[in-house]
C-alpha cells in the first residue's frame, strides 16, 4: 500500500489531523515526564536503609520531667544512670531481642550532620556525614552488616552530654565514607578528624550501608554515615529496640507500662513516643509515594482520554467516508486493505504527534530541571513513551477501522 492516497485524504481533514497529532504530542510529553517522576520516586522509596530485618525495629522517644542538667557532672551522671535503668528495663522485656540508645534512625527526618576531614584543624571538611551515636549493642540491634574491622565493645562506649564539644575516640563508618576517604580500602585503623577538630578519631570498623536520618534529596550525604560509641545524655532519650521475630506489637505495647513503672515523671507522646520503623519509613516516603500515585492517575486519565478521542474522531471519519470505502471495496480492495488503510493513517498521524511530542517532552523536562531541580530524563523514557503512544493509537483505531473494513461494496451503488 502506498502512503500517497492517505496523505492526500488527510489534506481534506487538516483540522482533525492537527488536533489528534497535538493531543498525541501533549500526551507523550506529559506521560514521559510523569513516568520519569514515578520511576525516580519508586527507586527512592525502595532503596534499602542498610538495616537488616528492619520491620522488627521500633523507636522510643521519651522526655524526663524536670530532668537534671547534663551540663554539670552530677546531673550528667544522674541522667546516664536514668538512661541505663531504662535500657536494662527494656532489654528485660520478654518480647524484646535487643535495645540500644541511639541519636537517630535512618529516615527519621531528625538527626545530626557534621563534617569529616583527614587532617587536624582542616579548614574545609572533606565530606559531610550523618552522625549516629549508640552503644555496643547499636550495631547488632540495627542489624548493620560489618564488612571490615570490628564492632564496638562495652569498653569503647563513653557517655557525654548531647551538646558536647569533645570528639569521640572511635568510629565505625559506612563503606561509601571509607571508599571516599581511603580509596585504597584500608580505612580500618586510620584516623579522621570530625568538624575541623584537632583531636583524632580512629576508624575501627566499616559497615556496608547506613542511610541518612535527614532528607538529603539524593545527594551523596544519603550514604555517608558514621557511628560513634557514645551514649548521649540529655533531658530526653531515644532508644531503638529490636523485637523478637513476630512480636513487634506485643513488644511495643509493653514499653509504656514498663517505663512508667520505673519512673512516672516522664513524657511518652501518644503518637510519636513509640513508633515502629515501618511507620517511620512510611512517613518519610509519604510525599514520594503520593507523587507517584498522583502521576499514575494523571497518566491513566490521559491515556484513556487520548484513546477515546482517537476512537471518536476515527469513527467520524469512517462514517464520513462510507461511500469512498464502498467504492474501493467495489473496485476490488479487500477488507484487510481497508483495515490497513486506517491503521496506516493513524500511524502516520501518531508519528507526526510523536515527533512533536518528543520535542515537547524534552522541553518540559528541561523546564522542570531549571525550575524544580529535577534530574535529566534518560532518552529511554522518551523512546518507551513513543512506543506507548503509537501502540495506544493502533489499539484505539482498531475498532473503528474494523467497522470500516466491514462496509459492504454495495454502499458504493447506493445514494447519489
Amino acid at each position, binding site marked *: 500500500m502506498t502512503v500517497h492516497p492517505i496523505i492526500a485524504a488527510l489534506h481534506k481533514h487538516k483540522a482533525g489531523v492537527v488536533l489528534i497529532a497535538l493531543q498525541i504530542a501533549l500526551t507523550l510529553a506529559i506521560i514521559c515526564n510523569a513516568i520519569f517522576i514515578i520511576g525516580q520516586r519508586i527507586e527512592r522509596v525502595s532503596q534499602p536503609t542498610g538495616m537488616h530485618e528492619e520491620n522488627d525495629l521500633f523507636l522510643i522517644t521519651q522526655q524526663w520531667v524536670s530532668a537534671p542538667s547534663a551540663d554539670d557532672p552530677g546531673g550528667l551522671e544522674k541522667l546516664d544512670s536514668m538512661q541505663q535503668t531504662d535500657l536494662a528495663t527494656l532489654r528485660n522485656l520478654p518480647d524484646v531481642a535487643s535495645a540500644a540508645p541511639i541519636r537517630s534512625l535512618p529516615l527519621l527526618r531528625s538527626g545530626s550532620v557534621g563534617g569529616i576531614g583527614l587532617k587536624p584543624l582542616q579548614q574545609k571538611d572533606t565530606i559531610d556525614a550523618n552522625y549516629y551515636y549508640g552503644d555496643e549493642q547499636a550495631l547488632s540491634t540495627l542489624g548493620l552488616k560489618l564488612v571490615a574491622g570490628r564492632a564496638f565493645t562495652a569498653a569503647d562506649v563513653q557517655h557525654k*552530654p548531647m551538646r558536647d564539644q569533645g570528639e569521640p575516640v572511635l568510629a565505625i563508618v559506612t563503606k561509601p565514607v571509607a571508599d571516599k576517604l581511603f580509596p585504597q580500602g584500608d580505612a580500618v585503623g586510620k584516623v579522621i578528624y570530625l568538624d575541623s577538630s584537632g583531636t583524632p578519631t580512629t576508624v575501627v570498623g566499616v559497615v556496608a550501608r547506613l542511610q541518612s536520618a535527614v532528607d538529603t534529596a539524593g545527594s551523596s550525604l544519603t550514604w555517608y554515615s558514621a557511628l560513634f560509641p557514645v551514649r548521649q545524655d540529655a533531658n530526653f532519650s531515644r532508644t531503638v529496640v529490636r523485637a523478637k521475630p513476630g512480636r513487634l506489637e506485643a513488644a511495643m505495647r509493653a514499653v509504656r507500662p514498663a517505663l512508667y513503672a520505673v519512673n512516672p515523671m516522664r*513524657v511518652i507522646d501518644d503518637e510519636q513516643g513509640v513508633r515502629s520503623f515501618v511507620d517511620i519509613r512510611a512517613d518519610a516516603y509519604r510525599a514520594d509515594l503520593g507523587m507517584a500515585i498522583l502521576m499514575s*492517575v494523571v497518566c491513566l486519565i490521559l491515556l484513556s*482520554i487520548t484513546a477515546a478521542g482517537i476512537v*471518536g474522531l476515527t469513527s467520524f471519519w469512517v462514517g464520513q467516508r462510507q461511500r469512498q470505502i464502498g467504492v474501493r471495496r467495489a473496485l476490488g480492495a479487500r477488507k484487510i486493505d481497508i483495515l490497513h488503510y486506517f491503521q496506516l493513517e493513524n500511524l502516520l498521524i501518531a508519528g507526526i504527534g510523536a515527533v512533536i511530542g518528543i520535542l515537547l517532552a524534552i522541553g518540559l523536562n528541561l523546564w522542570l530541571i531549571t525550575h524544580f531541580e529535577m534530574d535529566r530524563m534518560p532518552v529511554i523514557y522518551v523512546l518507551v513513551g513513543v512506543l506507548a503512544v503509537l501502540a495506544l493509537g493502533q489499539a484505539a483505531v482498531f475498532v473503528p477501522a474494523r467497522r470500516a473494513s466491514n462496509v459492504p461494496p454495495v454502499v458504493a451503488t447506493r445514494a447519489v
Partner: protein
Amino acid sequence: MFTYYLELALRSLKRSPGLTALMVLTIAFGVAASMTTYSVFRAVSGDPIPWKSSKLFVPQIDMWGPNGRGSDGEPPDAMDYNDAVTLMRDHRARLQSAMYQISPSIVPADASKHPINVSGHAVYSEFFPMLDVPFLYGSGWSTDDDTQRAAVVVISSKLNQKLFGGSNSVGKTVNVEGKDYRVVGVLNDWNPQPRFFDVVNSGGFSTGVEDVFLPFQRAISVGIPNDGNTNCNAVPTESGFVGLQHSACVWIAYMAELDDAAAVIAYKQYLDGYAHDAQQSGRFGWAPNNRLRDLPAWLDNQHVVPSDTKVSLLVALGLLLACLVNTAGLLLAKFLRRSSEIGVRRALGAPRMAIYAQFLVEAGMIGLAGGVLGLLLTGVGVASVGWVLPKDIAALARVDISLLLITLLVAVIATTLAGLYPTFRASRVQPAWQLKSN
C-alpha cells in the same frame, strides 16, 4: 432564541449519547485533576496574614562570613543568640520579637495523669500584637514581664480545654518543666499555615498546634532548650545549652514590623551599621551582607510551597489542555457531521451568527455538564489527597464556594474555547453544497 438553541443543543446531544458522554467525561476529568491539585496549591501558597504580611520583615545577618554562605551567597536563615538579643535590645522596629521553638513538658495537676509534651515558642511580649494573635481570655504579657523574666505563660485554647475544661484560666497556674507559671492569656483558635513566624523550624506547615508561649528570657534563664534546628559553622567551644548561647550557631527566628518604606530603609541602614560596627571591631572579617525581606519574599525564599505541589499543578494543567484539544476534536467531528442540517438552516435564512450561537451554546452545555461532574470528581479528589499527600499539607486542602465557582467557570469557559474552532468551521458550511449532495 436562547431557549431554542438550548433545545437544539439538547436534542443534538441526545442524538449521540456516546460521544456526548465521552466529551463530558473528558472535561470532567481534566477539570477535576486541575482543581484538585489547585486546591492543594492554593492551600499551601496562601498568605497566612494577608492584612499585614507586607509590613512584617525577617532580618538576616551574615555572622558566618564567606565560608558559611550558601552557593547563592545568602547569609544564614536564622540568628545566633548574641545578635538576636542585641537586636531586641536596640529595639529599632515598632514591634519585634526573637523566638525559638520549645517542647517543654506539662505536668497535669491531677496526679493520676501522665505528663504531656507540648510544643510552642519562647517569644517576646511584642510577638502577640505584632502578629495580631487572637485571644479568647486575657492577653499577652507586658514588657516588664520580659525584662523581669516573669513566670507567665500564654496557652492555646486546646491546652486550656485539656487542663481547665475550657474555662477562663487567666490567673491559674500551669506546671511547665516542673515549675509553676501563671496563665496570662488563652489564645483563640490560632493555627496559621504556613507557620510564617518560624518557617525554618516548622518547614512551613505543621499539623500540630502551638500550645504554649513563654517569655524568651525566662525560657533561657531556666534552661528550656531549643527543640528546633541548630546550625553551626564551627563546633561550640562550650558544651550544653549555655554553650549554644555563647556560640555562633544559629537557632533563633526573628521578625520585625516596619510600617512604611522609610522605616524599612532606616532598619536596613541600622542592620548594615550593626554589621559594619562588627567589622570595625574585628568580629566580622567581611563587609556587611545582610538581608531584610518582607514576609511574602521570605516565604518564597524559604521554598515554603513544596516543588511537588507546583509540578503536580503543572502536570494537571497539561492534562486539562490535552482534554481540551480532545474535546475540540470531538466537537469538530460532531458539528461537521451535521453539515447538512446546517446547510438547511442556512438555506432557510439563518445568518452565520445564529449558527455560531447555536453551536457555542451546545459547547457551553457540554462544559457545564462536565463542570458539574468535575465538581463531584474534585470533591472525591480533595477528599482523597489525604491518602497520598503528607498529612500537614493534605489537611489544608478543602472545597469551598470559591473553588466550586472556579471549577464550573473553568469548565464552561474552557469548553467554549475548545468549541470556537469547530463552530467557526460549522458556520463556514456552504448551504448549496450540502443541499446538492443530499
